[in-house]
């Protein structure tokens, strides 16, 4: 009974501790910013991947996924007008989620449009898109629009926009566990492969022509360096999945992880996946650390307004509103 009570207390402390909302709000901005980048990169693909004459027909998709599927294309006769409508709504919702206006409804629409477009042609997709769906779904349940958002600014004037500035961190905890699971599963699967154990996996991966990006003369042709990279990958990925949970190593592992992903992005052409993982690592900074970072940003913004050429009255009004809004955060 005592052990059970202790376990419940630990669960409570881990998932339901009250923290400032700036951390998750900052993550929302970075995450939705990356989703917008992906959106603009994808916008030219409507004809080939999503429209009525796309590579894979909607009939094939319907045959392969007869079960209940989050895909609004299943419900309508596909046309270019409807496809462009979905893409436009998706873009507008992303913009709203980025600035934090009607954040939760906007994110819900983002998820619906994103999942529909993804499931319109699921065979095109890789881990990047899986991460997009998984994390956006979780973000809907978080109060990521309670800070650093138009919603929070409007809270100064309209009671319906007023929200709590602290919250229990359970969504961030699920995201952290999710990130950890990604690294640990990938290490587990890699340890089953001979090339990872003998140290040649990075050699073969960097010889896949469609995945190459830039090189570093000499190093990328040194088998010793490639072996160190192979084993280093296993060690870093394991550290990102396991040692990141220990306060003592957290910051070092985070820095190592960011360098690791930037390194992969330099050598290999894997669009967005590395950027998404770097963004996800933000969640391992404590909400207090992220709040301090956000405070710095808000103060710089206020200073910028004070130094601007706007009229004194307008400046004072904006700065006062921002300060009031910001002080409620503290």
């Amino acid at each position, binding site marked *: 009974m005592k052990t059970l009570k202790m376990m419940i207390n630990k669960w409570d402390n881990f*998932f*339901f501790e009250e923290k400032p909302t700036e951390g998750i709000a900052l993550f929302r901005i970075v995450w939705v910013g990356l989703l917008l980048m992906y959106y603009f*990169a*994808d916008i*030219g*693909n409507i004809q*080939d*991947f999503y429209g009525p*004459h*796309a*590579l*894979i*027909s909607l009939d*094939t998709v319907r045959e*392969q996924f007869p*079960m*209940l*599927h*989050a895909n609004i294309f299943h419900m309508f006769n596909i046309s270019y007008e409807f496809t462009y409508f979905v893409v436009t709504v998706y873009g507008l919702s992303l913009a709203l989620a980025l600035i934090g206006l009607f954040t939760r409804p906007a994110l819900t629409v983002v998820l619906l449009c994103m*999942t529909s477009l993804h499931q319109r*042609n699921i*065979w*095109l997709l890789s*881990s990047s898109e*899986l991460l997009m*769906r998984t994390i956006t*779904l979780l973000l809907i*349940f978080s109060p990521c629009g309670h800070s650093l958002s138009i919603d929070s600014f409007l809270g100064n004037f309209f009671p319906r926009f007023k929200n709590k500035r602290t919250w*229990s961190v*359970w969504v961030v905890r*699920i995201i952290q*566990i*999710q990130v950890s*699971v*990604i690294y640990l*599963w*990938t290490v587990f*699967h*890699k340890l*089953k*492969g*001979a090339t*990872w154990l003998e140290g040649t*996996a990075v*050699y*073969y*991966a*960097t*010889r*896949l*022509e*469609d*995945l*190459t990006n830039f*090189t570093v003369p000499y190093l*990328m*042709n040194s088998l010793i360096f490639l072996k160190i990279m192979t084993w280093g990958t296993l060690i870093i990925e394991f550290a990102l999945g396991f040692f990141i949970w220990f306060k003592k190593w957290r910051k070092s592992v985070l820095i190592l992880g960011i360098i690791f992903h930037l390194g992969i992005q330099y050598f290999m*052409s*894997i*669009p967005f996946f590395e950027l998404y993982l770097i963004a996800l690592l933000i969640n391992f900074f404590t909400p207090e650390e992220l709040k301090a970072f956000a405070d710095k940003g808000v103060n710089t913004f206020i200073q910028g307004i004070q130094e601007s050429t706007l009229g004194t009255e307008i400046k004072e009004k904006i700065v006062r509103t921002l300060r009031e809004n910001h002080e409620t955060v503290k």
Partner: protein
Amino acid sequence: MSRAKKILVSGFILFNLLAMVRVHLPLEQPLLKSLYRPVDSYLNFFSLYQTWTMFAPNPSRANVFLTAEVEFMDGTKDTYKFPKASELNMEDKFSFGERYRVISDVIRKDINSFLWADTAKFALRKLRDSNYHKIPLRVHLVRHWSEIPDVNSKFIPHLTKSKSYDSYEFFTYEVL
């Protein structure tokens, strides 16, 4: 947060934890299968099955691309080459190169033969403008691959492009 809300949220947390490991647990017993049924419905609905097998257990050892050869009634032929990421600039790689890399790898496999007719029709549409006055008879889908040799037998310098590819025609679509 109220006690009732905490219990509800805890259930949702557990549900998500189960969803994260679902693919990795070979649960064949009927009881466990029924336990997982709601998780499966959720994962199916959003396509959230997680494998995270990037370059695992081993990275692929082949450079691959697809072409579609169209035969016309007047005896002429034309070939559509599906975009190959390594031949694209950085912007196009981000925009669609990676997608074509992934789907080419999917289409070439026999297990995904249900995608072949659509792929042939797509190639036909791509070649329609340059052959608008011709009547197509059939489309042949061809996979091309170049294996990366064992590192101990031959070391390939970084950024070297394969010079020779093996080819195999794996599907013919009769247009008429």
